[in-house]
């Protein structure tokens, strides 16, 4: 059902954990199935230098979390914000149709982490 890439990121997820003293944290949940994804980021200049996640969810949700935290490292905030759910699915070699909502969760949690960082900056 899942691509090899998905299975790899699920079985060996990258960036599991929580950044100590993060610059931004985003958490997003899926009300239908209860999945929750939490992403914390470290920002230097306007670049994301580190990202970690914790996820309560299915194999796809975990793989998406792993992939998105990989993808954003080294990216500017704007570049990171432009990552679409389709980008994530593509990087994972595709996701089953009914699992696409898991990648929305990923980009949403990331966006909230960035927003969190930006709102902290404003203070």
């Amino acid at each position, binding site marked *: 059902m*899942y691509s090899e890439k998905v*299975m790899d990121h*699920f*079985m060996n*997820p990258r960036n*599991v954990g929580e950044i100590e003293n993060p610059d931004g944290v985003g*958490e997003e949940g899926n009300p*239908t*199935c*209860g*999945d*929750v*994804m*939490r992403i914390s980021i470290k920002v230097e200049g306007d670049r994301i230098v580190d990202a970690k*996640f*914790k*996820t*309560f*969810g*299915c*194999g*796809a*949700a*975990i793989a998406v979390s792993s992939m998105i935290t990989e993808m954003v490292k080294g990216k500017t905030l704007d570049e990171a914000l432009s990552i679409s759910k389709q980008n994530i699915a593509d990087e994972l070699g595709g996701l089953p149709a*009914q699992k696409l*909502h898991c990648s929305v969760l990923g980009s949403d949690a990331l966006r909230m982490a960035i927003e969190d960082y930006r709102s902290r900056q404003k203070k």
Partner: protein
Amino acid sequence: MSTHYFDHVATTPLREEALEAMLPYLKEDFGNPLSQYEAGARAKAAIEEAREKVASLIGVRPSGIIFTASGAESNNFAIRGAALARQDKGTHIVVSKVEHHSILNPARFLEKSGFVVSYLPVDEHGLVDPEVLRKSITDETVLVSIIHASPEVGTIEPIKELAAVAKERGVLFHTDAVASAGNIMVDVGELGVDLMSLSAHQFGGPKGAAALYVKEGMRIVPLIYGGIQESGRRAGTENVPAIVGMGRAAELAASEVADNAKRLTKMRDRLIEGILKVPNVHLTGHRTKRLPGHASFVVEFIEGEAMLLMLAAKGIYVASGSACSSKALKASPVLLSMGVSASLAQGSVVFTMGGESTDEDVDYAIEEFPKVITRLREISPYAGGWGGQEESG
């Protein structure tokens, strides 16, 4: 990698003896049972022999057995066929909230055609209370259908007591015994039911053969009209090889069920004990009134499909009732109706064993399961608890 199949509730491996019995009918004995010459007569005789074996598995006469192609077909046939046959007497039917989709969905279809359906609640173990059934029956009630054993939580319903309540009121009683027949002793006379569904692939028989038992003399409206097969009650060229395989599997099950149930109960209890050593894991269903090979749980803080995949990577094949592992992405109605919260239901994992399961399978599962849980909890944001969002079940 060694494999450990813990998903007998999804389907069981086809027994070698059953395949052996089927092969002649997949080769030279391909005749149509309706044909008037010898080959037809041979196919017909093979079906009738299988009918006797299936009948004797559940303690009925062969003439009460109608062969179908799946448990789902048997259930649809029973619900719709019995309700339509009696609709002049009334248009109320009663089912439980823990029925299989192949009962619930035809019940909903009947609602569209003017029937009223009551969905009985269950307690935290998934049990239907006979007193609740009694109160639900009205003068309009024509049919009650309660599942015999739940594939999701293993709970065995008190069918004898429930059927007695229906009988008192002159109401037909159907039980969906797809998950139980062949796996525990199922005797129609003792249970006192009027209709019963069973499916071969749930007890070592092939996919494509199933049966509906219908009490002698009872009228039932066909689901599939046409020729005179199955005494005019279910048309279609018979799937001779599958029916023969079902017969052989039924014969084997009948002779082994007692020993098997004993052996599997021990294995199950050991598995439950082992799994429950992991903190924040809870058994679902009843502790003792459950299918012998059935051990089902909800695991806090993690999701079922992820468990299933990680267990599969270790060669352990299980099922899950989590929303993410259902194609509908909905929390299991069975768990919800037992009072399990939607989040906790996400942690559903179901181990089911069968005839070929071994003590080594159980050892392996007990050893590997905690590792998977630990690994997934490391990933979970709830690792330290539901964080107020949810009390632990």
